């Protein structure tokens, strides 16, 4: 099986709340290998590149909000000054960029079998109020859509995790230089997965 890489960012709310260690621990505990880490304040340019700019994406994001507003009986024009999906998409992207660049964040790359999906699973739903207990967002946040709407801001959901293998590859390239990634070292997942000592199966992997 091919090992994947995923970009995990403890965002600034996690930094301010002292939850970086807790978040990091959960990825280590499940057996993923930490291969890159930096505490940094992203530039606005990085923030803009981090989120897609395609019309398709902006429209999708805008429509999601429009649907939600409709369900809740909120007038988008009154709340956001427009009811155009793309315009709203741009606005939401702006909030996301602001959230990602407002202060220092802890950026990390984890490697392991199915790392991208595992990462998303540990992080939980985007909306913390519906994220399952046991997930990072479910355990450490109670933010919800009404709060986010009231203040016209994104969910404060503590952590970013790449959504797909392709996205992960792009994001890792954006946040890290190749020489800042250390994948050659032997690490605990060999123990975590029982690669050391007696084990069922052809135990031919590195130590």
């Amino acid at each position, binding site marked *: 099986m091919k090992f994947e890489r995923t970009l995990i960012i403890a965002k*600034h709310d996690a*930094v*301010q*709340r*002292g*939850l*970086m*260690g*807790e*978040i*990091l*621990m*959960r*990825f*280590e*505990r499940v057996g993923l290998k*930490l*291969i*890159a*880490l*930096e*505490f*940094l*304040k992203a530039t606005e340019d990085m923030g803009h590149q981090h989120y897609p700019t395609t019309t398709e994406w902006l429209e999708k994001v805008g429509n999601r909000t429009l649907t939600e507003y409709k369900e809740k009986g909120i007038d988008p024009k009154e709340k956001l000054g427009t009811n155009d999906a793309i315009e709203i998409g741009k606005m939401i992207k702006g909030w996301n960029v602001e959230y990602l660049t407002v*202060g*220092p964040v*802890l950026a990390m790359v984890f490697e392991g079998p199915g790392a991208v999906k595992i990462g998303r699973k540990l992080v939980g739903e985007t909306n913390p109020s519906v994220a399952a207990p046991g997930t990072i967002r479910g355990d450490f946040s109670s933010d919800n859509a009404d709060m986010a709407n009231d203040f016209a801001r994104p969910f404060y959901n503590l952590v970013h995790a790449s959504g797909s293998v392709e996205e992960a590859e792009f994001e890792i390239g954006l946040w890290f230089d190749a020489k*800042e990634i*250390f994948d050659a*070292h*032997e*690490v*605990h*997942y060999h123990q*975590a997965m029982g690669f050391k000592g007696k084990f069922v199966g052809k135990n031919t992997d590195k130590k």
Partner: protein
Amino acid sequence: MKKFDSIEQTFLMIKPDGLKRGLVGRIFRKMEEAGLKLVAARMILATKEQAGKNYPDTDEWKKGIGEKGLASYDNDIKRFKEEYGTDDMIEVGQKVFEGLVKLLLSGPVLISVWEGNHAVDEVRAIAGATVSRFASPGTIRGDWGVDSPPLAVKSGRIVFSNLLHISDSPKEAKREITHWFGDKFKDLSDYDRVDSANLFDESW
């Protein structure tokens, strides 16, 4: 926050043995729970020069290392001499120094700077005694340390695993921060933790 004299910055390195055991999150969590603020962190591969100059190259320091080793032998100097091949503390210190450099180069390390009230002493307290057998439960080495100098010597490693390197004084912290992060180092201390108001506001 910096206006208070007692607010210090201290250097903490998670050594390859700590990284390999997957203890980074647990170590960070302990620092954060103690109210310390992260102001710099990076995963790197140390150069030979960086690793060597991390430790003070003085006889006094080497003697201290030798004496710590002897304490692990419950001050049994005869056994100590048999196993290290010498009872010259400086010579023992030199051997350990060489082993430490080798350990630091054996894989990536995680370097970090933490800021807080009496941060140097706080981090020393949380890390616990150098040899885990003497470290209290609740400290990093007390909870997760398993190695000892006699075991290391017997298994041909000389250097035992103790997961971390930390600064032992504010002066040493300044030197180590510059040494590892460079002359142009700018910390990221321009933010407040959510609980900082409770800790540093004048209106209690």
